[in-house]
């Protein structure tokens, strides 16, 4: 795996019973890029995201995440089934047992991948700033006792966490709502808060699931510039699912098109725009017919 790919998905297969949601999906994401995953409804985009973030355990294939200076296999940390080779090599056997006992989707986030959801999943009964604090718990490196005793070190780390939370609130323009309950915010504000929360886990790659859904044109514009800020100022790779083609073509460097659980095209925005397969998938047009996106 070359150094400039942060994420390498190979032959990813996901079955739900007899339904093949994903069939042999393969793509790479370049470090520091803004990439988009597009496709018609039901193409399997969100399923790809769910596999990436450990929400689902993929049926087959591999997902390699190269972040934080080490490579993480997302499928492995969720606790795979034993393989024949494990019984001849103690090292791989113990690794498998370790992930079976202590593995889980929290390790994917700790490896440097964060995500947001299509249907917003904030902690609605916590305040806005608490939503951001809870995402930083890996950095707030203080135990329960120091919290009860309210030690100096605890106060300091809480202070830093608060500052970081307010920094992100400023980026997403929510500073004045810091102490409101997250559930009271408007739809667009909740979407922005979710992105801020994902960024508070300090990820190297952030996956945004339809960030522009339900936003008006000016909000979409603001979102696009925010995504550029994430990439340019925070060196975060962004992978997004989006239906707003104007925005996708505008901000992404690289596009992967899915249809019926298979990758039908990948490349830069211009290639995708003129790709007949993509046009056919979107509009159901006959190949060769003149249609432009």
């Amino acid at each position, binding site marked *: 795996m070359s150094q400039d790919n942060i994420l390498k998905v190979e032959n990813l297969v996901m079955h739900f019973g007899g339904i093949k949601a994903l069939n042999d999906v393969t793509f790479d994401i370049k470090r520091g890029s803004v990439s988009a995953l597009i496709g018609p409804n039901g193409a399997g985009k969100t399923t790809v995201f769910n596999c990436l*973030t*450990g*929400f689902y355990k993929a049926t087959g294939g591999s997902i390699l995440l190269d972040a934080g200076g080490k490579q993480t296999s997302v499928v492995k940390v969720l606790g795979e089934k034993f393989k024949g080779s494990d019984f001849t090599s103690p090292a791989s056997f113990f690794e498998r047992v370790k992930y079976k006992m*202590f593995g*889980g*989707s*929290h390790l*994917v*986030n*700790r490896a440097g991948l*964060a*995500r947001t*959801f299509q*249907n917003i*999943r904030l*902690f*609605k*009964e*916590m305040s806005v700033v*608490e939503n951001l*604090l*809870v*995402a930083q*718990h*890996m950095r*707030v490196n*203080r*135990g*329960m006792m120091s*919290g*009860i005793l309210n030690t100096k070190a605890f106060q300091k780390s809480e202070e830093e966490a608060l500052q970081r939370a307010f920094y992100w609130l400023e980026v997403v323009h929510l500073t004045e709502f810091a102490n409101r309950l997250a559930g009271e915010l408007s739809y667009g504000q909740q979407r922005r808060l979710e992105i801020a*929360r*994902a960024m508070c*886990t300090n990820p190297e790659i952030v996956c945004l699931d339809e960030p522009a859904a339900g936003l008006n044109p000016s909000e979409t514009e603001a979102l696009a510039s925010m995504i550029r800020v994430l990439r340019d100022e925070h060196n975060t790779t962004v992978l997004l699912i989006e239906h707003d083609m104007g925005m996708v073509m505008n901000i992404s460097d690289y596009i992967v098109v899915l249809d019926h659980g298979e990758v039908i095209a990948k490349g830069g925005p211009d290639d995708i725009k003129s790709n007949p397969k993509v046009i056919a998938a979107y509009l159901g047009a006959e190949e060769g017919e003149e249609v432009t996106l």
Partner: protein
Amino acid sequence: MDIVLQQLVNGLTLGSVYGLIAIGYTMVYGIIGMINFAHGDVYMVSSYLTAIAIALLTFFGMESFPIIIFGTLIFTIVVTGAYGWVIERVAYRPLRNSSRLSVLISAIGMSLILQNYVQISQGARQQGVPTLLTGAIRFDVGDGFVQITYMKLFILFAAFLGMGVLTYIIQKTKLGRMCRATQQDRKMASILGINTDRIISSVFVIGAAMAALAGVLITLDYGAFDFYVGFIIGIKAFTAAVLGGIGSLPGAMLGGVILGLSEALFAGLISSDYKDVFSFSLLVIILIFRPSGLLGKPEVEKV
């Protein structure tokens, strides 16, 4: 008049202890949506541990009350907490992704295992601990008097201190924040990097520790206990949790105090034979008017 005041004091102490145990039910329900029927038996185990701790401490020649009480509290809370952790690890975690019903049956099984294990290892006879703290304060009220034993004062103080510390942990510390996040959306919490299995374990440990605090206090006050003592007090505490709104921490405390007060007042003023009937009728009446309990939030289907 003096009886009413006396029963108010008794009810408040009893209720605060119900509240402590109810916390274990309500937190576990809040975080994984199951009723931990073994919780009453965790309380029972802590009664035996109290006796063991007192016996050990006096054996090593420690006689003064503060040393005994703190030694007993620390020993019992730590060991009972370990019980809570093991129970979750052995009986509930393997069933994490199965139906709610199988976890419930596993909990009932765990309750039976604990009862029988204690019965076999400690004997079926009633056991006792010596009275450690004697003396009382008396107030003259009208013709009669109200008597508050020092032990009851200690119970009140310790129970409310325990609740206060717990509320602080849940509201202010990092662990509490992670608990609340896990409670609201377990899968999302894990996507944010929270090890939810560990949070669930710590909730069980916290619940068991609160039950242990209650166990020490009640055992020192009543003096006698047997292997079956966890059943009725477990049911009462569960009632308190439902009364206050299961899943809500202040609800459990409030429910405990209300249940204790109403039970004591009914016993003192009307009939002590029917006090359990009264407290369960109270539950029925409150649930008719507020199906989700006093402080509970109505269940909203998740979309």
